[in-house]
């Protein structure tokens, strides 16, 4: 089995996945509840938090699977992109475990991990397909040609889609996580009430910062009472603009790449309007859309392992 470890951002996660892509255990120690309490601000954004959690999370993963380290054939870990200190905690834990058991280590790119969440059981997707990766930190269109080859067709020029949702929620005075709050409120609103601009950038790239400014101006022009009345319409119109941008570009990318299947991964894949607008799209289960380690272990099935002891020199990277 493959032991996956992920510590690139806020989540400390570990998972055990078989060679066939069956998840035996996947544990995520999330700070989402803490986020909610602090309105989106993380009480302490530090690698120390990962350091406290990484060993218990690995132990719990083995416990849930009823396995021991004897069952682990190799260790997969996120090498980047992410916050350097956070990545280093996971990487050091992976190196130490691999070293102590003389196991090979597989460094995995976080974005490959998101794509590989689609290769897990019970319904693994086979490439080729067009993949929309949309989360708080990333918004990308990938032409996935095989398990090992992908081409970046488009990306955001400024804010990620998930970030646009969260900052929009903040402008509307909603709670955290913003995407979910906007989605919920939008059910009661009119998506055509406000014509928010969808930025026209060349090619298959995205831009969401103009949209955020348009929402700010709309909110600024309303009084407190009026805002309360129009909040649902604003949320619905704002969400509609984000989703339209994602859908239009995704469909155009699929057309250009000649792909008839579209997959969505990342936290934004949970958005109900996005799912309704791309009804044929394949979406991973929600627990695999947000950061987790099962996807990292899954990606390792197609990534060349580094043999003992060469991986001791591996370094994390913040960005590529």
């Amino acid at each position: 089995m493959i032991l996956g470890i992920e510590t690139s951002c806020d989540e400390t996660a570990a998972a055990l996945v078989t060679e066939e892509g069956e998840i035996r255990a996947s544990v995520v120690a999330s700070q989402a509840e803490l986020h909610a309490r602090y309105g989106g601000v993380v009480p302490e954004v530090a690698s120390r938090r990962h350091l406290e959690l990484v060993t218990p999370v690995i132990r719990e993963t083995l416990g849930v699977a009823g396995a021991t380290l004897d069952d682990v054939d190799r260790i997969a870990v996120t090498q980047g992109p992410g916050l350097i200190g956070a990545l280093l905690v996971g990487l050091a834990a992976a190196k130490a475990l691999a070293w102590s058991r003389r196991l090979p280590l597989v460094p995995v790119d976080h974005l490959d991990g998101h794509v590989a969440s689609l290769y897990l059981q019970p319904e693994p997707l086979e490439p080729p397909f067009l993949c929309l990766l949309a989360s708080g930190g990333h918004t990308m269109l990938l032409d996935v040609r095989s398990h090992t080859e992908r081409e970046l067709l488009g990306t955001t020029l400024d804010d990620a889609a998930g970030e646009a949702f969260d900052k929009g929620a903040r402008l509307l005075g909603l709670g955290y996580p913003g995407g979910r709050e906007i989605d919920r409120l939008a059910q009661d609103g009119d998506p055509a009430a406000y014509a928010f601009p969808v930025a026209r950038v060349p090619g298959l790239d995205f831009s969401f910062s103009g949209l955020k400014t348009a929402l700010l101006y709309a909110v600024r022009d309303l009084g407190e009472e009026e805002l309360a009345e129009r909040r649902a319409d604003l949320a619905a119109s704002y969400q509609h603009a984000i989703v339209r941008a994602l859908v239009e570009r995704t469909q155009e990318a699929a057309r250009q790449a000649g792909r008839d299947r579209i997959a969505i991964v990342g936290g934004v894949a949970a958005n109900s309007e996005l799912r309704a607008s791309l009804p044929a799209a394949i979406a991973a289960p929600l627990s695999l859309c947000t950061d987790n380690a099962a996807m990292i272990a899954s990606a390792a099935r197609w990534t060349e392992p580094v043999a003992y002891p060469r991986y001791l020199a591996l370094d994390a990277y913040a960005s590529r």
Partner: protein
Amino acid sequence: METLTQSPEETEALAADLAGRLAVGDVVTVSGELGSGKTTFVRGACVALGVRERVTSPTYTIGHRYHGRAVEVSHLDLYRFEGVSPAEWGDLEPYFEDAIAFVEWPEAGEGVLPSPRYAVRLRHAGDGRAVEILEC
């Protein structure tokens, strides 16, 4: 002194001008409310410094590190922070080493982050932006 800009391109041009005065080790704080053009400003400076990677918002990722023509450029965002604890400073410190560092939402890092060489303040002004660049 405040300069009014009417487009992202004009904001980027101001930033490019500032970039010419920066050296490794310099810190530039970039403040302003949501949508006031902070990332746009940093992008303008980065492009002028020869960065060819996409310069995007680091709100969720906290820190980006770019390769300029002759210098490394760090791009940080403390939007999700409430103050900066010693442990958090330990994570942020490497981004200030051997680089020009731009910090969005620097307020949470006051008294902890290295002193800035320039403080940039942006605000909405009509449909444009008012940009103030202070030498510290």
